[in-house]
């Protein structure tokens, strides 16, 4: 009869040593890679945002990062937030518009968008998806569908008489049923995503446009003095 082979029991010290050792090795690798790539990632993020602003507001030559302060007024900031906003100036230094990021729930996940507001036209005049995980071939058509994107050539965002909110809520309507300038022509087959875009713009513009219309000139003037 063959005697059962004795299996050596691993001691607590050996377990502790190996797990802590592997953990330290892994932490070291991650820190080295993070340090090595952080500057490049930051540059990429800035370049991506700058390209997005140039897409939605082609006349912008210079931008100033802005935020809504604790007292509800517009303030210039040095560091951009997760949902950045910018005042944009053209080559002559005149205020050309504002580029504002907004987000909301789509069909699959959160959608982040950047839109341009024109002070002259009182409208949203540019739109770009910053982040989306919508269904390929269906929801992601919001990035390429010409009739949908045509809605953002001049999407009405006029303020109400009191200047506290939009005169007409921005809404997405069924494809081919757009009758008013504040409506977005939806996409059949991407209903939820195109409606989500309408909701994002309505809620974000409802907060930002009144503040921009009230304070943008003064922030720009202060920026010029500094």
């Amino acid at each position: 009869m063959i005697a059962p082979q004795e299996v050596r029991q691993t001691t607590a010290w050996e377990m502790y040593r190996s797990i802590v050792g592997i953990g330290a090795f892994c932490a070291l690798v991650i820190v080295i890679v993070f340090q090595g790539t952080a500057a490049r990632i930051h540059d990429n993020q800035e370049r991506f945002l700058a390209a997005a602003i140039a897409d939605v507001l082609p006349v912008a030559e210079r931008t100033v990062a802005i935020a809504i302060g604790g007292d509800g007024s517009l303030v210039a900031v040095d560091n951009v937030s997760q949902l950045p906003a910018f005042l944009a100036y053209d080559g002559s230094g005149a205020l050309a518009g504002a580029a504002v990021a907004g987000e909301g729930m789509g069909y699959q996940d959160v959608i982040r968008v950047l839109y341009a507001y024109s002070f002259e036209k009182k409208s949203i005049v540019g739109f770009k998806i910053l982040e989306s995980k919508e269904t390929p071939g269906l929801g992601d058509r919001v990035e390429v569908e010409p009739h949908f994107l045509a809605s953002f050539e001049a999407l009405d965002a006029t303020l109400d008489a009191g200047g506290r909110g939009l005169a007409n809520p921005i809404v997405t309507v069924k494809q081919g049923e757009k009758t008013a300038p504040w409506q977005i022509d939806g996409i059949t087959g991407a209903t939820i995503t195109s409606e989500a875009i309408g909701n994002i713009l309505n809620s974000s513009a409802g907060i930002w446009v009144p503040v921009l219309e009230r304070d943008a000139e003064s922030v720009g003037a202060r920026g010029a003095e500094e």
Partner: protein
Amino acid sequence: MARKEITPTDEFVKGLWRDNPVFVQVLGMCPALAVSNTAMNALAMGLATTFVLLMSGLSVSLLRNLIPREARIVCYICIIATFVTSVDYLIMALSLELHRALGAFIALIVVNCLILGRAEAFASKHGPGRALLDGLGMGVGFTAALLFIGVVREILGSGAVFGVPLFPDGFQTWTIMVLPSGGFFAMAVWLLLANRIRQKQEDAEKRAARAGT
């Protein structure tokens, strides 16, 4: 009969065809079906997985004598997660657009059973040289399989390959091919083809053996 010695070249080549992770072992189906909607996404996911296979295989092989049997899975997962995090940073540094296109699937490389499988079945039992060759072979085999699926799906689903249009404007794309179900169709066709070729090879080997005896 003397057993044929396995050469380092065999370790590399087996992942390409005989033990191909996708077409033979049918492993890593989640990224193979979900991220292969374009050739570029498939290539990027394949290269990211190859990097993790190589680095985790090398690390597990080098540290194999220090890892107790009872704690091996937690140690392997920790090592794999480290290199997945690294590849996540590297892709972000390379291209944010590519990182956005791959979405959550980069992080999900951690749970790709192909990588844990190679760490457990091969790297933990062999030296670093062979572990690297095994990881490279499996990675190249995985990348090639994803690329085959991605090219078919992009051509039919978008009328392009690597973003270059192949058809005139009037071409009606098959939207279903860029949806997850299209991944199953493309996968099925390639599996059918791979099995057919393998069956023919086996029949030819059997005939040659009979002729030899």
